[in-house]
C-alpha cells in the first residue's frame, strides 16, 4: 500500500502546485453554513447559486458551502421544501444562512457512492433516514435505528441477546451460497461486514448515537458504482461532524433500562411430568425425583442495562471537530450474559486554501467485552427433568483433599470427580458416579460452569482529502485512505467437574482460546468534473476513479482439556470459576491452529451524469473489478448501469396541477458478488495438511496427511441484473409525499456449492457458478403530515414491500426428479433438513410430508398423504410447502409533537412468513420422557396433548405454521425543557418501551425467526427505558 500512497500523494501535491501557479484576481471565495431556521440543523444538498448565472454549488454533507464570486454578487440559497433566500455578498467573507422550512421533506440529503447528490438529481432508488427519525431505545447496532423505516429493507435480529447479530436483506437475497448482506460504507470506507470472532454483530462497531444519516441504495443504478459488492444493496452511514462557525456544544445522553422475558415455552410441570412418566414408563419411575423445578424460570432474569454518551462538537478556527465517547453495559435476560462496550470517535473536517481543500478525518474505536451466557441452557431448560433439583446438596468435594500417596498433605494429582460442583447430574446406571454423556445437562450448571468471554477491539479510520483545482474549480480530486482493523480474543472454559465434560481417563474439562486479527486497507482516488453549459441548457458531471482494497484475516485457536492438578479448598457453586484457573493443567488434546488468509479487490470506476433543462436526467456508471479470489482468466468483471429520470413536475404542462413533486425514474444495471467468506482460493489447485487428530498409521508411525483440494479454475463473479421503475410524488406542498418502485432482479451464475459429477473433481461438492434466481417486487412509501400548526405537529409514515423470490436454475443439466439442495438443518436426530433450494421455488422452501388428520382433527402419527400414489410413503411423497420469507412486509411510524411533548412509535408487520416449529417437533413427543441411551428422563412440551405423538414426526407439514405478525417495536414519550439550567442547557427526558407487543397467530415464543426454523431462540425481551439528554 505504501507505494500507492506515495504515488498518489505526489500527484495530489503536484495538483496543488499547478493550482497555486494558476492564480486569480478580483474574485474571492464566500463560504458559510446553510441551516434550518427553526430546527437549527444544517442542510446538506442545498443549492447555492450566483443570481443571474448558471454558476452554483451545493452544500456538502455538513451544510457547508463555498463558492467563488465577484464583488457585489447575489447568492440564491434554495432547498426543496424551504423558502429560497437571496443575499448580497462580497468576496472573502463568511455568510451563514438560515432557511425557513415549508411543509416538506426534512431529509433532502442523498449520499451516493463517491459523492453527494441533490435528491432532485437522483435517478436511482435511494432512501435516506436522518438522525431525527431514528428508532429509540437501547440500541447497540446501527441497523436497529432504521428497522421498519425503509421499504424493501428487512432487518431481523437473531434473538434477544445484547448486541445480537441481525440479518439485513434489501429486496430479498440475491445469492444462495455467497453472502446476502449489503455492503456497508461508513464515512466512505466500505467495511468488512463478515463476522468477527467473539462479536455478536460486527456492526456494533459504530455507536448509534454517532450516526447522522443512514442511506440505503437499492437499485443497480445507485449501487453499480460499487460493482462487485453491490448485489445486495449498499448502506451508507455517515457520522456526525462538527460545523464550521459553530460554538462549542456538549451533549450528554444516557438511558437506563430493564429488560424482561415476555414468554417462555410451555413444558410439563413436575407433577404432570411425574404422572406421565409413571403412566408411560412405569419401569423407569425410579428415575423420578421429588423436586419441582421450573428450569426456564431458573435461567432467565430481568436484566439491567445502561448507556452513556458524551459528545463535544464545535469548531476551532477553521477546524470543525466532534469528539464522542460512549459506554454501554447491558445484561442479557439469559443469566450470566453481558455485554460491555466502549466507543470513542473523532471527526475533524477542516477546509483549507479558501475552500479548495477539504479534509475529513474520521476515527472510530470500539472495545467490547462479552460474557456469553451458555445458550445450550435454553434448549436444556425445555428438556431437563423438572422433578430434579438444581443442586443435590453435595457442596464440598472431599476428594480434593484426598491424600493418596499418604504423605499427610493433599496430593497434587488429579482426582476422580464425583459431585459435579454440587449440581444435580444424571449418572450412569449401576451405582456409578460417571455422568451420562448423552442428552441434556442441568441448565443452571450449563450457565454457571462455563466461562465464555471475549474482548474485541476495532478501529475504523479514514482520511479523505477533497481538492478543488485552483486552475479548474470544476474539477475535484478526492483521495480516501482507510483502515479497518479488528482484534478479537476469546476464552471458553469448562472445568473438568462439569458432567458434560467428564473424562475419567485423561481428565476432562475444556479450555479453548481463539484470537482473530483482521486488517482491511483501502485506497481510493477519484476525479470529478462538473460543468454547466448554459447555451445548451445542460449540465455534465463526470467522475472516474480507482479503488484498491486489501483484506487480511488471521484466525488462531488453541484447544485443550482443563483438568485440576492441585488441591483446591473450596468450590462452592458459583465460586469456582475464575479463581482457580492457575491451578489447572492443559496436557491433553492440545490443538492449536493458525489460518491467515488474504484477498485483494481492485477497481476502476466511472460515472457520467447528464442533465438537460433541469428535468431530464441521465446517469451512466461503469465499474471494472478485479478479485484475487478468481483465476487470471476470470478475475475481471465489468458492471455497467444506466438510469433515466424525468422531473415531470418541471414540465410546463404540469403548471396548475396541485402537486409539489412528480418524478419518474427508470434504471438498469448489473452488479456482482464475490464474497465467498470461507475460501479465498477457490480456483487454485492446492494441498492441505491434516491436523494431529487426522493422522494415519503406517507401520508403527503416524503421519500427517496431505490432501489435494477440489477446485474450479473457471469460477467467476455472480451477476445480478436489476431493472427498476419508480415514481416520486408529493402533494399539497409536500404535506403528502412518497414513492412507488417496481423492481426485477435476476442473478445468474450463482456461486454455489454443488455436487459435481462423481469422480471428476477432488471432492464431491465444488464451489462453482451454477444456477439462477430472481426477485421481483414493489415498494411503496408514503409520509403525511395531517396536522402541522405552531403547537401540534403530526407526522405519519407508512411503507409496504412485496417481494417474491424464485430459484430458476440450479444444476448444469435439468432433471425434474432432482429435488434440490438440502438446507435448513433441524434439531433432533442428526443431519435432518427441512428446507430445500429447488428450481421453481423460493429459496429455503420447506420440503415436507402432507399430514393426515383423524376425525378428531388431530394429526395421525406417521400417516401422510401418498402424493405420488405409488402405494407407499417414501421420500418421493414430500412436497414443497411455503417458505420462511415474508411476501409482504410493512412498516408504520408516527410522531406527534404538542408543545414540548413528543410521542412517537414505530411498528412492523410481516405477512406470509412461515415458521417450522422445531421446538415442538422435537419436544412434543412422549418418547423423549425416557431415553435409554443414558438412561435419563427428559421433559416435553405440553403441545404433546395436541398430537399425542410418541415418536417425532420431523418432516410433517403440521409443524409449518403461518407466523405473520405485527410487532410494535417501540413507543416513546419525551418532554423537552429548553432552559433546564438557566438557559445554559436544555434537557430532554424520554420514556421508551421497546418490543411493546406482538400480534400473531403463531403460538411459539416469537414469530419472527430468521431463517424460519424456530428452535432455542434467545427470547427477545421487552425493555423499559428512561433516558435523558442534556445539551450545553
Amino acid at each position: 500500500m505504501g507505494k500507492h500512497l506515495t504515488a498518489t500523494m505526489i500527484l495530489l501535491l503536484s495538483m496543488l502546485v499547478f493550482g497555486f501557479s494558476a492564480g486569480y484576481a478580483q474574485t474571492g471565495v464566500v463560504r458559510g453554513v446553510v441551516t434550518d431556521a427553526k430546527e437549527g440543523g444544517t442542510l446538506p444538498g442545498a443549492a447555492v447559486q450566483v443570481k443571474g448565472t448558471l454558476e452554483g454549488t451545493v452544500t456538502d454533507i455538513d451544510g457547508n458551502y463555498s463558492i467563488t464570486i465577484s464583488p457585489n454578487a447575489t447568492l440564491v440559497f434554495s432547498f426543496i421544501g424551504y423558502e429560497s433566500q437571496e443575499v448580497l455578498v462580497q468576496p472573502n467573507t463568511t455568510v451563514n444562512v438560515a432557511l425557513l422550512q415549508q411543509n416538506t421533506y426534512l431529509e433532502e440529503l442523498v449520499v451516493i457512492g463517491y459523492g453527494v447528490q441533490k435528491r432532485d438529481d437522483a435517478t436511482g432508488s435511494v432512501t435516506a433516514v436522518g438522525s431525527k427519525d431514528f428508532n429509540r431505545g437501547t440500541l447497540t447496532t446501527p441497523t436497529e435505528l432504521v428497522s421498519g423505516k425503509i421499504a424493501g429493507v428487512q432487518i431481523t435480529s437473531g434473538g434477544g441477546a445484547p448486541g445480537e447479530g441481525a440479518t439485513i436483506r434489501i429486496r430479498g437475497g440475491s445469492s444462495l451460497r455467497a453472502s446476502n448482506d449489503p455492503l456497508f460504507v461508513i464515512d466512505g470506507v466500505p467495511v468488512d461486514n463478515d463476522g468477527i470472532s467473539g462479536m455478536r454483530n460486527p456492526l456494533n462497531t459504530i455507536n448509534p448515537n454517532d450516526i447522522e444519516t443512514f442511506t440505503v441504495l437499492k437499485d443497480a443504478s445507485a449501487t453499480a458504482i460499487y460493482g462487485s459488492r453491490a448485489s445486495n444493496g449498499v448502506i451508507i452511514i455517515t457520522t456526525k461532524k462538527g460545523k464550521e462557525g459553530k460554538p462549542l456544544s456538549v451533549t450528554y445522553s444516557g438511558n437506563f433500562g430493564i429488560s424482561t422475558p415476555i414468554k417462555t415455552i410451555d413444558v410439563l410441570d413436575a407433577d404432570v411430568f411425574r404422572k406421565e412418566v409413571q403412566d408411560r414408563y412405569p419401569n423407569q419411575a425410579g428415575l423420578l425425583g421429588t423436586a419441582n423445578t421450573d428450569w426456564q424460570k431458573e435461567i432467565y432474569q430481568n436484566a439491567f442495562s445502561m448507556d452513556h454518551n458524551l459528545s463535544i462538537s464545535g469548531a476551532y478556527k477553521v477546524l470543525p471537530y466532534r469528539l464522542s465517547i460512549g459506554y454501554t453495559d447491558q445484561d442479557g435476560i439469559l443469566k450470566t450474559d453481558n455485554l460491555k462496550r466502549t466507543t470513542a470517535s473523532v471527526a475533524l473536517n477542516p477546509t483549507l486554501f479558501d475552500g479548495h481543500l477539504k479534509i475529513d478525518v474520521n476515527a472510530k474505536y470500539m472495545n467490547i467485552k462479552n460474557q456469553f451466557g451458555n445458550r445450550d441452557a435454553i434448549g436444556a431448560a425445555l428438556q431437563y427433568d423438572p422433578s430434579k433439583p438444581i443442586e443435590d446438596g453435595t457442596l464440598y468435594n472431599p476428594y480434593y483433599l484426598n491424600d493418596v500417596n499418604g504423605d499427610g498433605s493433599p496430593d497434587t494429582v488429579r482426582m476422580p470427580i464425583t459431585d459435579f460442583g454440587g449440581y444435580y447430574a444424571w449418572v450412569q446406571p449401576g451405582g456409578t458416579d460417571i455422568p451420562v454423556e448423552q442428552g441434556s445437562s442441568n441448565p443452571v450448571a450449563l450457565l454457571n460452569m462455563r466461562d465464555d468471554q471475549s474482548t474485541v477491539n476495532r478501529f475504523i479510520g479514514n482520511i479523505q482529502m477533497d481538492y478543488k483545482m485552483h486552475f479548474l474549480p470544476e474539477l475535484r480530486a478526492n483521495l480516501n485512505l482507510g483502515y479497518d482493523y479488528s482484534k478479537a480474543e476469546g476464552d471458553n472454559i469448562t472445568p473438568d467437574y462439569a458432567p458434560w465434560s467428564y473424562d475419567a481417563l485423561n481428565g476432562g474439562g475444556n479450555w479453548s482460546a481463539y484470537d482473530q486479527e483482521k486488517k482491511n486497507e483501502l485506497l481510493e482516488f477519484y476525479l470529478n468534473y462538473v460543468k454547466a453549459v448554459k447555451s445548451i441548457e445542460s449540465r455534465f458531471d463526470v467522475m472516474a476513479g480507482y479503488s484498491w482494497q486489501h483484506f487480511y484475516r488471521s484466525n488462531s485457536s488453541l484447544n485443550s482439556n482443563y483438568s485440576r492438578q492441585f488441591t483446591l479448598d473450596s468450590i462452592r457453586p458459583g465460586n469456582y470459576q475464575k479463581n482457580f484457573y492457575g491451578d489447572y493443567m492443559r496436557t491433553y488434546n492440545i490443538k492449536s491452529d493458525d489460518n491467515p488468509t488474504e484477498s485483494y479487490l481492485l477497481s476502476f470506476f466511472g460515472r457520467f451524469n447528464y442533465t438537460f433543462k433541469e428535468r431530464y436526467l441521465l446517469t451512466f456508471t461503469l465499474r471494472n473489478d478485479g478479485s484475487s479470489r478468481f483465476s487470471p482468466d476470470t478475475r475481471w468483471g465489468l458492471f455497467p448501469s444506466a438510469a433515466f429520470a424525468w422531473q415531470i413536475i418541471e414540465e410546463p404542462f404540469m403548471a396548475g396541477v396541485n402537486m409539489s413533486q412528480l418524478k419518474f425514474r427508470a434504471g438498469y444495471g448489473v452488479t456482482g458478488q464475490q464474497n465467498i467468506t470461507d475460501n479465498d482460493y477457490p480456483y487454485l489447485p492446492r494441498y492441505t495438511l491434516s491436523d494431529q487428530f487426522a493422522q494415519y498409521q503406517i507401520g508403527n508411525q503416524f503421519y500427517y496427511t496431505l490432501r489435494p483440494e477440489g477446485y474450479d479454475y473457471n469460477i467467476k463473479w455472480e451477476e445480478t441484473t436489476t431493472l427498476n421503475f419508480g415514481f416520486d410524488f408529493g402533494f399539497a406542498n409536500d404535506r403528502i409525499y412518497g414513492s412507488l418502485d417496481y423492481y426485477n432482479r435476476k442473478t445468474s451464475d450463482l456461486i454455489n456449492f454443488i455436487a459435481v459429477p462423481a469422480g471428476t473433481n477432488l471432492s464431491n461438492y465444488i464451489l462453482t457458478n451454477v444456477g439462477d434466481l430472481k426477485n421481483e417486487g414493489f415498494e411503496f412509501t408514503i409520509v403525511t403530515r395531517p396536522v402541522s400548526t405552531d403547537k401540534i405537529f403530526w407526522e405519519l409514515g407508512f411503507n409496504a414491500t412485496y417481494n417474491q423470490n424464485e430459484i430458476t436454475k440450479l444444476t448444469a443439466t435439468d432433471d425434474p426428479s432432482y429435488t434440490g439442495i438440502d438446507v435448513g438443518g433441524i434439531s433432533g436426530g442428526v443431519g435432518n433438513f427441512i428446507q430445500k433450494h429447488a428450481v421453481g421455488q423460493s429459496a429455503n422452501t420447506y420440503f415436507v410430508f402432507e399430514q393426515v388428520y383423524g376425525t378428531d382433527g388431530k394429526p395421525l402419527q406417521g400417516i401422510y398423504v401418498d402424493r405420488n400414489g405409488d402405494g407407499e410413503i417414501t421420500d418421493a411423497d414430500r412436497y414443497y410447502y411455503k417458505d420462511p420469507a415474508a411476501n409482504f412486509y410493512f412498516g408504520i411510524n408516527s410522531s406527534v409533537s404538542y408543545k414540548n411533548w413528543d410521542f412517537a412509535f414505530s411498528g412492523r408487520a410481516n405477512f406470509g412468513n412461515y415458521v417450522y416449529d422445531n421446538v415442538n417437533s422435537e419436544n412434543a413427543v412422549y418418547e423423549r420422557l425416557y431415553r435409554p441411551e443414558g438412561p435419563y428422563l427428559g421433559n416435553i412440551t405440553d403441545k404433546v396433548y395436541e398430537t399425542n405423538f410418541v415418536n417425532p414426526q420431523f418432516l410433517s407439514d403440521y409443524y409449518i405454521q403461518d407466523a405473520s405478525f405485527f410487532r410494535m417495536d417501540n413507543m416513546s414519550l419525551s418532554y423537552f425543557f429548553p432552559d433546564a439550567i438557566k438557559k445554559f442547557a436544555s434537557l430532554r427526558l424520554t420514556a421508551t418501551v421497546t418490543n411493546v407487543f406482538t400480534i400473531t397467530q403463531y403460538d411459539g415464543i416469537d414469530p419472527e425467526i430468521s431463517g424460519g426454523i424456530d428452535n432455542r431462540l434467545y427470547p427477545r425481551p421487552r425493555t423499559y427505558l428512561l433516558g435523558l439528554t442534556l445539551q450545553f
Partner: protein
Amino acid sequence: MKKFANIFLIVAGLTIAFSSCTKDLDTVPLDKKVTTAATVFENPEAYLQVLAKLYAGLAVSGQEGPAGQGDISGIDEGFGQYLRGYWYHQELPTDEAVIGWNDQTIKDFHGQSWGAGDVFIAAMYYRIFYQIAVCNEYIRETTDAKLDGRGVTGDLKAQVQTYHAEARFLRALSYSHAMDLFANVPFVTEDDVVGLFFPPQIQRAELFNYVESELKEIEGQLLEPHTVYARADKAAAWTLLAKNYLNAEVYTGMARYGECATYAQKVIDAGYQLAPVYANLFLADNDQNNPEQIFSIAFDGINTRTYGGTNFIIHAAVGGSMNPSDFGVGGGWGGIRTTSAFVNKFSDASGNTDRRAMFHTDGQNLEIINIGEFTDGYAITKFKNVTSTGSAGKDIDYPDTDFPLFRLADVYLMYAEAAVRGAADMGMAVTYVNKVRERAYNGTSGNISAGDLTLDFILDERGRELYWECHRRTDLVRHNKLTSAEYVWPWKGGAPQGVATAGKYRIFPLPTADVNANPNLQQNTGY
C-alpha cells in the same frame, strides 16, 4: 490549453500509478498448512503424506479429527466417513443389524425401502468416488515420467513406485465396493484430469474386468505380506481378488470360484494364522501381535479420530443397562442391535458354547417391537475400546480399535465356499472351517464333517464368524437371500415378521444428484 495539459498529466500519472497494482491479485495461500499443487512435491516427504491420505480416506472424515474440513459434503461429516457408510450399507439391510435413530432416512436401510434421493446412499457413493478421484490424482502425480521430471531417483523413486501401486490397490478396492453396491457406475481413471466433464458409465461386468486387471498388474509391485502394518501388501490384493471372484457370478453372470480358491490359497500360504482368541480381534490393541489381520483400517484414540469407523460401531452399540466403561467409552449412543433371526444362528446365545455369540441380553428383548427402542433386540458386544489385557484404550471418546477389513478366517471361509460350489478341495475346506470353529468352540466340539458343509451352512457360518464386519449384504445377495422370500427376518421390508422385497434392492440406486449432474448415467433398474 494549460488546463488540458494538466489534466493529461494527471490522467497519465494515475494510469501509471495504478496499473502496476494489478499484480496484487496474484496471491498464494498464506496458511502454512496449505501448499499449491505446483510445489507440493518439492518436499519428498509429501509422497508418503499424500499416500497416507489415501489410506486415511477409509478411516477419517476430513483433515481435522474427529471432524472438520470434511472430504465430502452434503451430509453430516460423521455419516460421510467411509467405513461408517460401508457398515450402514452392508449391515443395516440384513438380519445382523437394526438402528433406532431418527437420523434422516436411516431406518429405510433395514426396511429395504430406500430411494435414489437418500443422503446416506449418496454419501457412500461420493465417498467411494472421492477415494477414486484422489487415488487418480496421486497415480497421475507419481508416474515415472513425473518422477523423472522432478529428478526423483534411487531409493525414493523405488519407494514411490510401490506407493503408486498401493494407490492403484486402494482405487481397485473402492471400485470393488462401487461394483458391489451400485453395479453400473461412472468410470474415471488417471487419464482424466480434474475439471468439468461427464464420465462415461461402465457396466458392472466391465468394471469387474478392469479391477481384476488392475490387481493382477500391481500384484508384483506391492510389498510382501506382513511387511508394514496397515499398508496394502500382496496378500491384500489376493484377498480382494478372491473376494471378487467369489462374487463374480453376481457381477458378471459368470462363476469364477476356481480362481477364488486359488487366490485364497495364496493368502493362506503366506503364513497368516488365526489369532488364538476370537474376541481379541476386535479390541483396542488388535494391531499388536495379530497374526490373522491381512488388511485393516487403523484408528487411534490420540492420532486418528473420527465419528465414523469403530468409534461409531462401538458407541452406537452401547445403551440400556450396558456399562459404557466395559467398552472403554464414556457413554453409549444407543443405536444398533441385532434381530432374533441372527441370534438364532447360534444354538446358544450365551457365548458359553460358541464364543462368537457376544450378546448383551440383560434388559433387552430378543424380539423387536419398536425399532426406535434400544432395548428391543439383543445388543452386540463384539467391538470394544479395551485391550486384550482389560485396560482402557488411550482415549475415552475415540477408540484405538482397528477394523479388520480382510482377515484370515474370511479367507478360509471363502475357500470353503468355493469348494462347496465345486471349485476347490472339500477336504481342505473342512479343515479350514474346522480351524475357525475350533477357535470359536475352544476345542473340537463344534467341528463339522464334509457332509455338513452346505451352502446354507457356509452362509450361516460366515454370519457367525464375520457379523458386523461388512460382509453380510454381499453374502446374502450371493446366496439370493437378501430380498427373496427364501429367508426373511424381523422388519425385513418394514414388516415385524419380515417380508420379501423387490429384487431391485440387491443393489443401491445411483444418487439422484449424480444422475442429475452427469447425463451419461442411466439409473439402476427399478429406481
